[in-house]
């Protein structure tokens, strides 16, 4: 009980992303460290799942924070949260790198340097990952945020800067497509074991 109260108190005392951003603008290194701790992993996973490439994901994370530091494409509090801004930058970077032909999963898979390579031991997961990779990016984003990152529709909508209903419908369609793509594998016994 006391621990819960302390956690709530800590949460209230925790500076918001926007406060940290203001401190970062004042060249406070600890604010950068805190923002990095809060968002780096999720941004990395987002870029990794969206691109399927570890090198693109690493480059994306680095570039997102470099832009945050330099103030390029400056974040404006009135237009949304800092987290949404970070995801927006990451999304654009992944798209650009994909378009510019950065080394993709296929190239990296040879050296085992991609997410797929790491999942190859688990056939079921590979099938799902491949199906996920074939989804349109907006559907993939919805699955990634709502199912893999377990964010609520509202939180995902804030990050994607679109209505909640749009996220819900994208997720439902994405799941329908995923089920449809996994069905032949299931029937062939590839996606086995977890049926119930």
């Amino acid at each position: 009980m006391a621990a819960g109260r302390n956690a709530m108190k800590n949460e209230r005392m925790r500076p918001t992303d926007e406060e940290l951003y203001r401190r970062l603008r004042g060249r406070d290194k600890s604010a950068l460290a805190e923002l990095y701790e809060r968002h780096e992993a999720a941004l990395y996973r987002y870029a990794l799942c969206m691109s399927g490439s570890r090198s693109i994901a690493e480059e994306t994370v680095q570039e997102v924070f470099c832009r945050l530091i330099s103030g390029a494409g400056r974040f404006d509090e009135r237009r949304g949260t800092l987290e949404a801004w970070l995801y927006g930058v990451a999304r654009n970077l992944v798209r650009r790198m994909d378009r510019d032909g950065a080394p993709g999963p296929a190239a990296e898979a040879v050296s085992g340097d991609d997410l797929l390579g790491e999942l190859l031991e688990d056939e079921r997961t590979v099938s799902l990952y491949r199906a996920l990779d074939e989804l349109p990016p907006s559907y993939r984003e919805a699955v990634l945020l709502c199912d893999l990152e377990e964010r609520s529709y509202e939180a995902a909508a804030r990050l994607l800067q679109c209505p909640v209903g749009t996220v819900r419908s994208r997720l439902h369609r994405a799941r329908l497509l995923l089920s449809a793509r996994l069905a032949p594998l299931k029937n062939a016994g590839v996606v086995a074991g977890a049926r119930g």
Partner: protein
Amino acid sequence: MDCREWISEVVNNARAGRAPGAALREHLDDCPRCAERWREERILTREMQILADRVAGRRSPASVRESVERAFERHCRIVRARRTALVFATAAAVVMVLALSVVWWKGMSPAEPRTAAQTIGSEFGADAGFVPVPGALPLAEGEFVSVERTELDGAALARMGLPLRETDADGVVADVVSGEDGLPRAVRLEADPEAVD
């Protein structure tokens, strides 16, 4: 509720790992399509959970963090350098404005009034017997002057502010130095004939 609305319930329940409520269960019993979707959604949720577990906890390597920190240090150095340059530039601008203000102020301050006496050369000065006309405009630098011998009456001498002698009432011969504008600057009266005599 139609199937489209039930599907939303199906997805939400499957994602949350909840058992279907009584109404949904009843619909699933009656609708094979929705029942199939329910099964698929449950499977997909489980598969998704496995993938989520495999992906969770993944982070970028430490080298990325180091690069970001280096970028931050570099940015701070650039900002510091820019600020220093700005301070110097501002200080230089202030000094320049002050200097220009002083020069301007000096240029605008009224010069000491100069008289014709100060500008007429020694050739037409007191040593040569010329008396400057009081209040006459000074000669400009390099201005040509002319010397004319003329006869001035007492009134003219008085107008020029020159001292009158008793003998001057009827007129006196004088050399008048005039500027290019024709205005008199200095006068030399001919010596008093009585004094000469």
